[in-house]
């Protein structure tokens, strides 16, 4: 149960489909605006927010700089506290470890705390293939899972659904996998939450094994941290006998006090709350209290690859708050599915290529899925310069094609443009040609821009990408530099030869 991103088309194609879905666009615009406004309000309350961001970035940066050391410290502290530590190079290894633990306990089902790392490795599908059912307990994850859907937001995976759709999904599917939705279920949020609570209660009480991720892993104390709003995570973390936590290696911070800026930055950036309703921390096993067997899977899955990238490594500072998604004008219009990954939006556009490389077309389209407006950098609590990383990843895409026997048309155009722009004489010549083209266009065009300038309407061929929805001003007969020459920089009187533009 649940879809897969495998085989998703490249971003422009996926985006076109999403843009055609008016319901989706309405849902997204409403939801992102709501969280955006909440975030802005609570961030504005904090005096020295900028300093806090700098502190948050520094904590993560310091941890990454000495990642190997901190991970060894973490492993030692965890083991000392009674946990079993596993290392997983990739998704396959990580899934196998989790499945192995479940099998060892004869479990054919596990309850899950919402976790990006387990979504990233496709854990639910892997467990299902082993005959183990994985139940999501976060409300939005549950909606996605029951709807056989894909997540489209880091924090609110079902952001693309409205209340009526959620009610439909609950009524249709809950009965198949456990306690059915009540017959009189309406689309009132409290009713929907109540139905989910009843449905999940059975599962919490029955499950022997729980699976979680972690928002932070503190090296010196061997503590894992999960923050959440609903409390379902805390149920999973305390009720079952066995707990398996899958933790990306970049989640490590050096010391307990490093949590201070992080736990202040995260809720405000993420849910627009002053603090998280539930903050759970656990260090290994406490006899007689909570899970009596704790496993921690430290996951690489491309992270050391990203770490080796001078510009891109800052993406590993990400604390998955999703603030960048909520302010991104591209994300707001196309939603998360178009990114073809559990990490959508601006962070997804850099993280996916950094973790996986740019050899497949879908991933290679992601760094271009941005207008580089910079809104993401402005809100990022750990100051990841996403626009710069985007440009750098575009360069990685271009560089990966430098050896192609047949260059892409774009590469030919760019090389020609660079050649023209490397010498003013060549540029002058090109501008003269464009001026002539403009005059020709002017003869045929019936479109006039306000202000009197001639413009091209719908054009065929490569120009159609522009003129499908936008008029294009015809190039003026005279370029600026020609005007400068003719009038000696405006010192000689201008006559009516001046290119009207």
């Amino acid at each position, binding site marked *: 149960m649940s879809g897969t991103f495998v085989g998703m088309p490249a971003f422009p194609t996926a985006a076109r489909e999403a843009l055609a879905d008016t319901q989706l666009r309405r849902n997204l615009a409403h939801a992102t605006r709501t969280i955006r406004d909440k975030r802005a309000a609570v961030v504005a309350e904090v005096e020295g927010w900028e300093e806090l961001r700098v502190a948050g970035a520094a904590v993560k940066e310091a941890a990454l700089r000495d990642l190997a050391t901190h991970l060894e410290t973490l492993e030692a502290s965890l083991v000392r506290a009674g946990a079993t530590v596993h290392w997983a190079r990739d998704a396959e290894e990580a899934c196998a470890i989790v499945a192995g633990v479940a099998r060892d306990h004869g479990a054919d089902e596990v309850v899950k705390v919402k976790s990006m790392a387990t979504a990233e490795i496709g854990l639910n599908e892997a467990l299902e293939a082993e005959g183990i059912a994985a139940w999501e307990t976060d409300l939005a994850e549950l909606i996605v899972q029951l709807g056989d859907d894909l997540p489209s937001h880091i924090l609110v995976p079902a952001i693309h659904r409205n209340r009526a759709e959620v009610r439909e999904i609950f009524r249709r599917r809950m009965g198949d996998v456990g306690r059915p939705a009540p017959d009189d279920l309406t689309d009132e949020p409290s009713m929907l939450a109540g139905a989910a609570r009843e449905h999940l209660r059975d599962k919490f009480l029955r499950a022997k094994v729980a699976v979680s991720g972690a928002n932070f892993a503190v090296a010196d104390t061997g503590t894992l941290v999960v923050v959440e709003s609903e409390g379902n995570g805390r149920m999973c973390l305390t009720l079952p006998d066995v707990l398996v936590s899958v933790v990306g290696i970049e989640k490590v911070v050096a010391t307990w006090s490093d949590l201070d800026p992080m736990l202040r930055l995260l809720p405000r950036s993420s849910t627009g709350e002053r603090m998280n309703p539930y903050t759970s921390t656990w260090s290994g096993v406490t006899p007689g209290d909570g899970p009596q067997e704790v496993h921690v899977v430290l996951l690489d899955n491309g992270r050391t690859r990203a770490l080796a990238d001078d510009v891109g490594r800052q993406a590993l500072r990400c604390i998955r708050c999703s603030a960048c998604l909520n302010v991104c004008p591209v994300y707001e219009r*196309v939603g998360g599915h178009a990114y073809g990954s559990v990490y959508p939006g601006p962070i997804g556009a850099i993280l996916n290529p950094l973790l996986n490389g740019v050899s497949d077309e879908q991933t290679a389209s992601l760094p271009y899925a941005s*207008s580089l407006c910079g*809104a993401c950098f402005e809100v990022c609590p750990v100051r990841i310069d996403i626009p710069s990383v985007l440009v750098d990843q575009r360069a990685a895409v271009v560089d990966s094609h430098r050896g192609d026997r047949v260059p892409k048309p774009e590469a030919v155009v760019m090389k020609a*443009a660079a050649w023209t722009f490397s010498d003013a004489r060549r540029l002058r010549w090109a501008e003269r040609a464009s001026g002539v083209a403009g005059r020709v266009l002017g003869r045929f065009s019936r479109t006039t821009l*306000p202000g009197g300038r001639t413009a091209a309407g719908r054009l065929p061929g490569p120009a159609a*990408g522009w003129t499908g*929805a936008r008029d294009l001003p015809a190039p003026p007969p005279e370029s600026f530099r020609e005007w400068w020459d003719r009038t000696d920089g405006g010192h000689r009187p201008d006559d009516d030869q001046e290119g009207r533009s």
Partner: protein
Amino acid sequence: MRVALQVTCVNDAMFPDTGKAVVRLLRRLGVDVDFPQAQTCCGQPMVNTGYLDEAVPVVRTFVDAFAGYDAIVTPSGSCAGSARHQHSIVADRSGDPALVAAVAQTGPRTYELSEFLVDVLDVTDVGAYFPHRVTYHPTCHSLRMLGVGDRPQRLLEAVHGIQLVDLPNATECCGFGGTFALKNADTSVAMGADKARHVRDTGAEVLVAGDNSCLMHVGGMLSRQRAGVRVMHLAEILAATEETA
């Protein structure tokens, strides 16, 4: 002070009136602006599309053309941002220490028009007259990459006769984004459509911004919708006087 105009490739080929307006405006303010003929482009089309090697000779042409000037003024937040923040990336990659040094010289001396007027010339009332209802769109690069702040608004507020109206959701990107407008045309158009709608909601006669590329995009949409809204570069409004009105 030796001041050079960096007219930008888009203005040079497509919007020469913007360059002329800058020249008129600066002369009126007593600045004898020069136009180095060797200039071409800031290299941003290549850099932002990922063609960093290709950008190297373009950046070299830029720094050569503007060597020796005390200030380089450009009517584009995007190109100023490129000179100040992107040229060093290209130069570092070239491995040419002379280029690295030259870029470090020219970058900080490159000013977007409103910065030059407010910070260097220390004027906000440039003696312009423009009796129309105008709304201002702050382009992303001037807003975020450069941080020009409210300088353009202060300049516009001081224009005589102007009726300046607020643009809803002003700080949201118009969707141009250079090659983004072609590579992701559908998304770009969806963003532009919302921007155009907000512009129409203001009832303004003129949409003004500090970058012709963004204006070409939004203006192209407004024109297709027959909205009857004219787009103008900030320089053209600041250069307007009683005589030209």
